[in-house]
C-alpha cells in the first residue's frame, strides 16, 4: 500500500507525458498545451505530497518528451522542474483552502508558460511568438478541470485529507 502511494504520482506523470507525445491531429499552434498536461500533475503532487515525486522522475518525464517530440534535450525537464519547484514553494498555500490553491496553480501555469517562452527565445536567439504559449497555458488550465479530480481520486487513499482539521477542546 505504501509503495503504491509512491507509484501512483510517478505513473500519472508518465501517462500524461505519453499522452502529450501522441498525434492527436490538432493544429500546430494549438498543440502547445499537450506538453503542459504533465505540468498539471507535477504541480498537483508537488503541492500535496512533494516527497512522493522524486526530482529524477520529473527530469526523466521531461527528457522522454524531448526524445519523443524531437525537441532539444533538456527543455521540458527544465520546465517540469520549475513547475515542481513552484509547487514545493507554494506548499503553505495548499493548506489555506481551495481558492488559494487554485490561484497558486494559475500563477504557476503562467510562470511556467513564461519560462517556456523565455527558454525557447534564448535557444533560438530571437523572440519567439508568445501567443501559442498563452493559448497553451489557457488550454492546460481547462484540461486541469478534468485532470485534477482524477488525480484527487487516485490520491484519496494515500494523501492528506482535505476534510480533516485538528482543533483543541470541544
Amino acid at each position, binding site marked *: 500500500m505504501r509503495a503504491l502511494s509512491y507509484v501512483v504520482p510517478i505513473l500519472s506523470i508518465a501517462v500524461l507525458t505519453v499522452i502529450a507525445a*501522441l498525434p492527436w491531429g490538432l493544429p*500546430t499552434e494549438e498543440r502547445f498545451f499537450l506538453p503542459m498536461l504533465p505540468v498539471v500533475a507535477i504541480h498537483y503532487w508537488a503541492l500535496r505530497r512533494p516527497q512522493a515525486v522524486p526530482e529524477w522522475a520529473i527530469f526523466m518525464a521531461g527528457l522522454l518528451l524531448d526524445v519523443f*517530440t*524531437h525537441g*532539444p534535450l533538456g527543455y521540458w525537464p527544465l520546465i517540469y522542474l520549475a513547475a515542481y519547484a513552484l509547487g514545493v514553494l507554494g506548499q503553505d498555500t495548499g493548506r489555506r483552502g481551495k481558492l488559494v490553491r487554485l490561484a497558486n496553480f494559475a500563477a504557476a501555469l503562467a510562470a511556467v508558460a513564461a519560462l517556456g517562452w523565455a527558454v525557447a527565445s534564448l535557444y533560438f536567439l530571437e523572440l519567439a511568438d508568445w501567443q501559442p504559449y498563452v493559448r497553451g497555458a489557457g488550454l492546460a488550465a481547462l484540461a486541469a478541470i478534468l485532470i485534477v479530480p482524477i488525480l484527487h481520486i487516485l490520491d484519496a487513499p494515500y494523501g492528506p485529507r482535505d476534510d480533516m482539521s485538528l482543533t483543541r477542546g470541544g
Partner: protein
Amino acid sequence: MGRLRHDKLNLTRRGSEPSGPARIRVALPALVLICLGLLLLSRVNHSMLANARWRIAEWMSPVLQAAMVPLEPVRHVGRQIAAQVDMTEELRRLKTENQKLANWEWRARQLERKLLDLEALTKTVQEPKIDFVTSRVIADSSGAFVRSVMIDAGETQKVHAGYPVINADGLVGRVIETGLSSSRVLLVNDLNSRIPVVVGKTSVRAVMAGDNGAQPKLLFMPPDAKIMPGDDVATSGTGGLFPRGLRIGVVTGDPAAPRVKLRADLDVLEYLSVLFYDTPALDVPADASVPGVKTSTAREKDARFASPRPAGPEAPR
C-alpha cells in the same frame, strides 16, 4: 496515545513526512544544471546526443504504438464530427471539382497517348517505378522547435534515411533517422527543410524552405521569374534527393515574397507512405572512383545528407 492514531494519519510518527517549511532538495539545482548542459549540447548538435536520443526513441516506440490503440477510436470520433460539420460545403465543392476533373480526364488521356507516341519516337528511357511502404504516425512534435513525426516503419520494412515521404495529398517530408521498427520524418515545413522545386507552367526553379510555420517560403528564384498565386509547386528532382514531379502545393501570398500553401495537411497526419527512392545521381559504384579517392555508396551518401541537424535557425544545409 491510541487516540492519536487514525487509519490514514499517524500523528505519532516522526521524520518521514516533513511538516516544516517547504524545502527544495539538493537534487533539484543539480538537475537544472544538467538540463542547461543538455540544452547547450543540443544547440551545438552534439553527435553523441543525437545517437542516444534515437536509441531511446526506438526503444520506447512500442509504448507509443500501444498507446495508439485507445487513441484510434478517439481520433475516429473527432474525424466523424469534423466531417459532419462541413458535409454540405464539402459536397458542393466535390461536385464542382468532379465536373472539372471529368474534362481533365479526357484531356489527360489524349495527352498520355501523345506522350507515349513521342517517347516511342525519341526512344526515351522509361522512369523506374518506385515501390513504397505505408505506415502509421505514432508521435508528433509539439512546441516551437521542430516539425517532425515518428512512424512505425523502420529498417525491418527496408526504410532508410533520405527516403521521401508522401500521403494522398502530396509530399510530406523525408526520413531523417531510422531504427529497426520506427523512423523519424522531417516535415517539409521544418526550419531545416530545403527542397528544390519547380513552380508554375514555366517551371521556374526555386528552393522551398520551411520556417516552422504552416506555409514554407520560396527562395532563390531567378530575378525575372513570373509566378502567380495559384501556381503549382512540385519537386524538381535537382540534387537527386527527391524524384521529380511530387506535388507539394500552390503558390500563395505576396508574389514578391511567395509562400507555398501545402496540399497535405501536416497537422492531421495519420498514414504516410515512404517511397523507396534511391538517389540515382549518387548511385556510383565504388570501383568507378578516382584512384586514391574513397567513394561512398549511395546509401552512405544518403545517410550523410539526411543526418539530423540542430533544431536551430542557423542549422547549416
